[in-house]
Structures are given as structure tokens and as C-alpha cells.
């Protein structure tokens, strides 16, 4: 039976969709059968981040309304044949789907897939309630900023109140140079404030911009973010992976003061 994971954050723009794309692709790289569901109705984005925007025929709302079979709406990934996307609808709104419908959709997909990963919209309204309804565990994404951490705390409270079985934290877009200077909260600071298990630290990496431009998740590539996302995937499947040393090699200092090494 597959596991349903919701990727959520409260605040917008902290990297939920990027995280969903990379974690999903990474799990497929680990030979898992994965389906990604975009639940941000009206603001569809996971399709472009995955580079699958030209292949959409049916969407999430078509599935829950019974206009098509689930299988007809699933888009197979370009690179991994065990990875699928169920895109969101662009011309409808959040009220087109109910938490009960999401629950039964997740149940239907459980038998077919190892992981069902749900990209949650920002906010705490209907869209959030839909996204978490069928989930077994949550990945809460935040950046080390006061606004994002405050919203993550609120989200964690709501997840706990809804009896989410497992809640893990991803600190995204960490600027190691700023943390060193004391001008940014460290991942340990964020972990202490939010008091949930830290499952990954993703450094701020310009390669993410490039990969999003191209519609190709960078998980598993020889980049800092690519390695960080792959580590998260390995931790999700239960491996004990040590946190990477973000200060090592290709550091900010060597880049700033010329390429000495």
C-alpha cells in the first residue's frame, strides 16, 4: 500500500512545488512508483516545473467529477516511466473539490503507487483542507525567514489538530554565507522554534532557477540542491542519511575571492 505525502507550507513562494517535483522525481529515481497531484486549483504550476505542460488532457477536477477515469488523467513523466502527474484545473476554483473526494482519490491511488505526493496550495483555506485530507504524512517547507516560519508554525498546529501521523520539516533556500555571519536563522534555529523532525536542508542554489526554466527537476544531479533533495528522498524511504556539510567545497568564499582550488 502506498504512502500519501502532502507538501505544505502556509506561506506562498517558499518552494512547495519545487520540493514536490524534486522529491517525486527523486523517489522515481529510487525505483519507486510515484504520482504527483497538483491541488492548487486555478493556479496550476507543477506541470510547468515538471516540463509536462503540453501533455495535459484531463485534470484533477475531471477525475473527481467523473468526466474521465483516473488513468486517463495521469501524465507519464518524460524521463522516468514510474513517475506520473495528475495536473490541477486552471479554469476552476477550490470549491470544485471536497476533502472527501480527495480522500477517496488517494485511497484509489494507494494500490497502484508506492508514493502519492500532493502539492498543497498556499493558505489555510479549502485548498489546504483538500490537500491534507487523504495524507498520511506531511513535509512542511519553510525558508529561514520570520514570515515563512510563523506560517509554518500555524500549519504544523493545524496538521496536529487534524491528527497528521507524521510531520517533517524541510528548511529551504538556506544561505550558508548569511548564517555564518549571523544574518540569517540557521536550520537548527528553525528546527528549535518549530519543534518537529528536520528531514532536509536545501541550500539556496541558482541551479534551481535553471532547472525550473527547463522544466527538469535537478534532484540527484551534482549540485548542492540536487544532493540535498536526493538525501531527503533517501530519508523518506527510511534510510539514515547524514546531513551534508554545506560549508564544504565550492564554497561561497572560493567563489567570492577567485578560484583558488
Amino acid at each position, binding site marked *: 500500500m502506498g504512502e500519501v505525502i502532502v507538501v505544505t507550507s502556509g506561506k506562498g513562494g517558499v518552494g512547495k512545488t519545487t520540493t514536490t517535483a524534486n522529491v517525486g522525481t527523486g523517489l522515481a529515481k529510487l525505483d519507486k512508483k510515484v504520482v504527483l497531484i497538483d491541488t492548487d486549483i486555478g493556479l496550476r504550476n507543477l506541470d510547468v516545473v515538471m516540463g509536462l505542460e503540453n501533455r495535459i488532457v484531463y485534470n484533477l477536477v475531471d477525475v473527481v467529477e467523473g468526466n474521465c477515469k483516473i488513468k486517463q488523467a495521469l501524465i507519464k513523466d518524460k524521463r522516468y516511466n514510474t513517475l506520473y502527474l495528475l495536473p490541477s484545473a486552471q479554469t476552476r476554483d477550490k470549491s470544485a473539490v471536497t476533502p472527501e473526494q480527495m480522500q477517496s482519490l488517494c485511497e484509489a491511488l494507494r494500490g497502484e503507487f508506492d508514493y502519492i505526493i500532493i502539492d498543497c496550495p498556499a493558505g489555510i483555506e479549502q485548498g489546504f483542507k483538500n490537500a491534507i485530507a487523504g495524507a498520511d504524512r506531511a513535509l512542511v517547507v519553510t525558508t*529561514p*525567514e*520570520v514570515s515563512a*516560519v*510563523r506560517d509554518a*508554525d*500555524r500549519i504544523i*498546529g*493545524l496538521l*496536529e*489538530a*487534524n*491528527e497528521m501521523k507524521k510531520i517533517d520539516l524541510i528548511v529551504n533556500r538556506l544561505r550558508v554565507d*548569511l*548564517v555564518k*555571519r*549571523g*544574518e*540569517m*536563522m*540557521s536550520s537548527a*534555529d528553525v528546527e528549535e*522554534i518549530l519543534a518537529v523532525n528536520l528531514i532536509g536542508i536545501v541550500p539556496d542554489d541558482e541551479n534551481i532557477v535553471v532547472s525550473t526554466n527547463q522544466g527538469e527537476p535537478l534532484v540527484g544531479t551534482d549540485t548542492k540542491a540536487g544532493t540535498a533533495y536526493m538525501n531527503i528522498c533517501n530519508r523518506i524511504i527510511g534510510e539514515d542519511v547524514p546531513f551534508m556539510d554545506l560549508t564544504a567545497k565550492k564554497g561561497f568564499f572560493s567563489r567570492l575571492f577567485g578560484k583558488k582550488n
Partner: protein
Amino acid sequence: MGWFGFKKKSSGDVAKNRLKLVLSSDKAGCSPETMEQMKNEIIQVISKYIDVDTEGLEFRFRNEADGSNSLLANIPIKQQAKTRRSY
């Protein structure tokens, strides 16, 4: 931490402290100092009647399913030799 008598607090620490304050007031409508004071006063009152174990004390706000918050106070009572013998 500054090297000469004056020290400028790093903005990372400022952020952390501001967050701690804002999160506790979001939940409780009061500052951590007020929370601490309230906790101490509650313990004082209970201590008048029962011997409480301040080590294992739990005192925090909890999110409820309906979206409201509740104050959770878990106050362990010290085992007394006298009580145990009477059983």
C-alpha cells in the same frame, strides 16, 4: 557577540527572538514573560495544597481540531512515602 565592549546583536538572533515572541502571543495573546509568570503563579497555588514535581512540568498551548487553542498544564505530583505506606 562583539569583540569590544559594545555588541551589536546579529539580525539572525533578532529574527529568532522576535519569532518566539510573536508565536507565543499568536497562540496565547500574551508574551513569554507573562506565560512564565502565569505558570509560576499556577504552581504556587497548587503547591499550597499538593507537593508538585516542578521538574516534569509541562505547560503549553495546544491546537485543537476546531481551530481553537487550549492551555495544557501537566503537573506531576511528588510521590510521598507517607501516602504509599497507607495503601
